[in-house]
């Protein structure tokens, strides 16, 4: 059996591992640490702002078809994006997570800042038109959510008077994980439902994204049945329960399919077979060893997770020292932090061909190395709001190619 090694345990790495496995390969996934999923909203963004100065697009797939050729979406094509999306939705549904969206319109999701964000695929628990929300309820004490701030922002956007409520969890556990676990207890969840029945019967209520790690949708339905209204989760600062929920589901799917996952293992270099990779050198604690493979998928993410590292004035891909699409002499960030044009360092990445093989001087560095997710160049996941979508779709392609299946 063909042996595929995936480096990185984020959205891209897990997706590539599952795809390669489903395509018949033997798959090992190595991860040095967590992906960014415990930080992100839980929504899979497809594409909202293709141009720095342009307006938001309302139909992501249509906009994807018009992207410049260096964009990862353009390299794999719109059909591959649709296939990846559908495959993702089907898989996570098996594990009780419903993601809504068809890529042809945007969802508007309310955030803990009281602002709206655009996204392509949204968890069921967030898929409510913000204009429908009547009440914002804090679940406390939780410092990363201010019902007042959210209601204020929402009132400005919808010109509707939005009320606030505060529900105190018994014997207050204080961090997000503790609160979510507490709220998932049947008694506490019932108490919350009854509280809403008294204070907000039949209304649409926004709450911090603290529904359970495991059965969020079931919990939502059971609380809703008690107060006859609708609950909406509002994503905010980390740790992100919706992000962790998604990652638990993907990990379980990978393990069920027989992917071998090794944590705290860092890839540190190539086993160079002259134009082909024989595998990678890895480090576990202080020990170095070799992992051989027939194909390797690089899904190491970006600056936040160490897929790209920096010193004064230089950015580097640390595992294979692959060339990055970063113009020499450019500053990493623009002078304004919240510049709508984004920041040069965040849009740099590995340059690849249409088979997602990293290139040096226009030819593949290794014919059996494929890259996917945030490590790719040619796009800015943060500014464009395309990180989740690019991770899923490029990983789907990379996983299949690594397993030896033609595109």
């Amino acid at each position, binding site marked *: 059996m063909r042996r595929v090694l995936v480096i990185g345990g984020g959205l891209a790495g897990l997706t590539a591992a599952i795809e390669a496995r489903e395509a018949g390969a033997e798959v090992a996934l190595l991860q040095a640490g967590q992906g960014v999923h415990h930080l*992100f909203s839980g929504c899979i963004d497809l594409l909202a702002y293709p141009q720095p100065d342009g307006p938001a697009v309302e139909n992501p797939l249509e906009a994807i078809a018009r992207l410049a050729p260096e964009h990862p979406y353009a390299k794999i094509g719109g059909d591959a994006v649709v296939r990846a999306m559908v495959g993702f939705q089907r898989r996570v549904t098996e594990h009780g997570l419903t993601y809504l969206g068809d890529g042809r319109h945007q969802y508007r999701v309310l955030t803990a800042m009281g602002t709206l964000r655009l996204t392509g695929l949204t968890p069921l628990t967030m898929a409510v038109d913000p204009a429908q929300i009547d009440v914002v309820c804090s679940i406390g004490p939780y410092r990363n959510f201010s019902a007042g701030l959210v209601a204020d922002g929402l009132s400005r956007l919808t010109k509707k008077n939005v009320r606030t409520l505060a529900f105190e969890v018994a014997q207050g556990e204080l961090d997000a994980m503790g609160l979510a676990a507490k709220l998932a207890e049947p008694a506490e969840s019932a108490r919350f439902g009854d509280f809403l029945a008294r204070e907000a019967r039949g209304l649409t209520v926004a709450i911090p994204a603290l529904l359970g790690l495991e059965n969020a949708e079931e919990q939502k339905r059971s609380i809703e049945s008690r107060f006859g209204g609708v609950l909406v989760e509002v994503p905010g600062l980390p740790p992100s329960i919706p992000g962790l929920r998604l990652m638990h589901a993907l990990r379980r799917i990978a393990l069920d399919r027989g992917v071998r996952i090794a944590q705290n293992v860092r890839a540190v270099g190539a086993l160079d077979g002259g134009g082909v990779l024989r595998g990678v050198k890895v480090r576990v604690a202080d020990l170095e060893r070799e992992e051989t493979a027939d194909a390797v998928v690089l899904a190491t993410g970006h600056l936040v997770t160490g897929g790209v590292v920096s010193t004064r004035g230089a950015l580097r891909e640390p595992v294979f020292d692959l060339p990055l699409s970063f113009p020499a002499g450019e500053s990493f960030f623009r002078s304004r932090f919240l510049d709508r044009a984004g920041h040069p360092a965040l849009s740099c990445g590995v340059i690849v061909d249409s088979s997602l093989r990293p290139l040096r001087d226009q030819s593949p560095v290794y014919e059996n190395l494929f890259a996917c997710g945030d490590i790719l160049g040619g796009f800015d996941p943060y500014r464009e709001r395309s990180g989740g979508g690019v991770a899923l779709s490029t990983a789907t392609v990379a996983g299949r190619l690594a397993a030896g299946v033609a595109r």
Partner: protein
Amino acid sequence: MDRFDAIVIGGGITGCGVARDLALRGVGVLLLEQHDLAHGATGRCHGLLHSGVRYAVKDPIAAQECISENRIVRRIAPHCVELTGGLVIELPGDDPAYYHQLRRGCDEAGIEHRALSPADALELEPNLNPRLTRALSVPDASVDPFLLSQENARAAERHGAIIRTHSAVIDFIRDGAAVTGVRFADDEGEHEARAPVTVLAAGGWGMPLAAKAGVRVGLSLSKGSLVIMNRRFCDRVINRCRLPADADLVIPNGPTSIIGTTSITVASPDGLVIEPRELAVLLAEGAALAPGFATARALRSYAGVRPLFQESGDADGRGITRGFFVLNHATRDGVPGLVSIVGGKLTTYRLMAEKTADQVCELLGRRVAGRTSDTPLREGEPAPFYHRYERLARLATTKPGEMVCECEMVPREAIRAILSELHGRPDLADVQHRTRLGMGPCQGGLCSYRGLALLHDEGLLAGGSPAAVITRFLDQRFGGIAPVLWGDQLREEALNYAFYATLFGLDRGGDA
């Protein structure tokens, strides 16, 4: 409400000190600061409460002033000063004669000093360069310039002074040649205030202001840049044993260390840019003092200007030392009603304020002596602890959910306590200056949100858009981070950008 005995222009340490000194003497004071207290050189200085050792060879008078004021400030403001002590270290290549000159200078100025063997010095400060050849212990200390300014302002207010931040003086009111008041602008518009004496304590901004009153105050502006590292390399202030030069001082500041400074002449105190070559010097010289600098993470950098008074042999003999000058513009320039205070150091602010207040009282015809040298800033209260110890003690009783900023241990209560001091439009930076919110390693990543939520919940956003308030704060805070953006700091900012742009959509105004 628009008539006072004296108006003070500038809310740096000098202006705040003058306001307090005058208020203690019963003079009715209005202080006007264009931005927030400590906006100028004060909030961008090194935070060294000089023992005087730095001047012991070159400038004996300044050295004497420093040691005497150092002792006074420790006594009257114990909560603003961390009694770190200091070391002077000699490295291979430093002129060995300087060490002996320095000891002689210290003896003459009355600065306590004690020689330490290299082994003893390294035992006290294991992160120092192990190649150090000689060391001297001196009574330097670390001072919080923001807190010291605020505490002077608060004490002044308790004695009847009025302190207005976000109020910029735009012109003087004249009666013939005499200055009889000022015109100033805040968010609501323009206002006037009158007083028989106006004190110009506007630091590096003084020259153009003085010109509006028709007087010339010759200042040369020297920019100094500094870098804050996210580790406390040493528990003591570290001086290099050589004539004062670039980047020869490391000062512990809470969990961080500050290395400085450079010295470059500039044309204006606004829009200071930190040049890459300055950073290179600071980091390289820092690594010479403590090798860990080479691999540590730079949190932010900042620059301030020292206004150096350029006229020698000034006619007005009052209170003049080589460090600072009190100028009575009536006798000097024929403009009655205006007094300027220029030059000096944070360490000697109290003495400067006293000399200035003496001059003001003389002009007002009041014979009251100053009493700031033996009046604690927190009069009538038991002597407080150094503020970081107080915070640590508070940790024991603060519920984790009440902590707004973990890096700097700022609970909700500490923020609530200063809300009444905020003037003008809501500004998270004003909260930051008073509580240290967002000054630690995450540089506001998580606590900006929580600080904003608190302002909102306390009704302080007053109909203003929360998104606009936090965007302004995040953009402004980034100014000091941009020059040191590499390694872990770049990683941190990538994450912060993802929170506030990708997740919250603030780069697009948040209205999708």
